[in-house]
């Protein structure tokens, strides 16, 4: 069965530190890849997405992600986090022969301390 794995459940880091969140998926076909963020008390918001083309994608708020097809990975990065980046981050995949169904990873709770 297809699945999405996020490597860390909780990450605590200080402001200005670099962040990298791992995401791997298990599906051999064509996929669309997403990172969503959920700030406390808010809805899921799209950070960035990959459909095709340049495997390094840039999203909002200084986030970027790299799609490595050979590793089935789509890791999220930010060079220097801020306190306002405290949130839960979800990697998600659409298998392109589905009806747009998103399969989510378990999420990573990121806490940025001042």
């Amino acid at each position: 069965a297809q699945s999405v794995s996020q490597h860390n459940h909780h990450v605590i880091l200080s402001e200005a530190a670099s962040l990298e969140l791992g995401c791997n998926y298990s599906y051999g076909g064509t996929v669309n890849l997403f990172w969503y963020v959920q700030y406390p008390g808010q809805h899921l918001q799209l950070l960035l997405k990959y459909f095709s083309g340049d495997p390094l994608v840039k999203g909002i708020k200084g986030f970027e992600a790299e799609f490595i097809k050979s590793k089935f990975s789509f890791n999220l990065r930010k060079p220097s986090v801020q306190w306002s980046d405290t949130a839960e981050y979800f990697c998600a995949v659409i298998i392109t022969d589905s009806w747009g169904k998103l399969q989510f990873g378990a999420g990573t709770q990121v806490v940025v301390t001042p």
Partner: protein
Amino acid sequence: EPEVTQTPSHQVTQMGQEVILRCVPISNHLYFYWYRQILGQKVEFLVSFYNNEISEKSEIFDDQFSVERPDGSNFTLKIRSTKLEDSAMYFCASTEEGAVNTEAFFGQGTRLTVV
């Protein structure tokens, strides 16, 4: 900016009662979805809906669940006889025509508590 709206934001119901969760997708979107997130667990797909019928549903979406688009703007999820394990955050989402290469927009969710 257009957004998906969900009502109510919180719902408490007794076990065995029926609940209806409401969603208003973005007006020009054609694909609609329900997801849920049990506390501490991942976001799970429940059902997708296109052209007034279910296009896909998960194993979770059993006979006690149903969806409807009653009036061209609302998209509802009904749980006929709620169980304790139905307690979760329920998210509605919608996408434009073409279910791939497009972004899903999510509502703020309805927190359902079954007591």
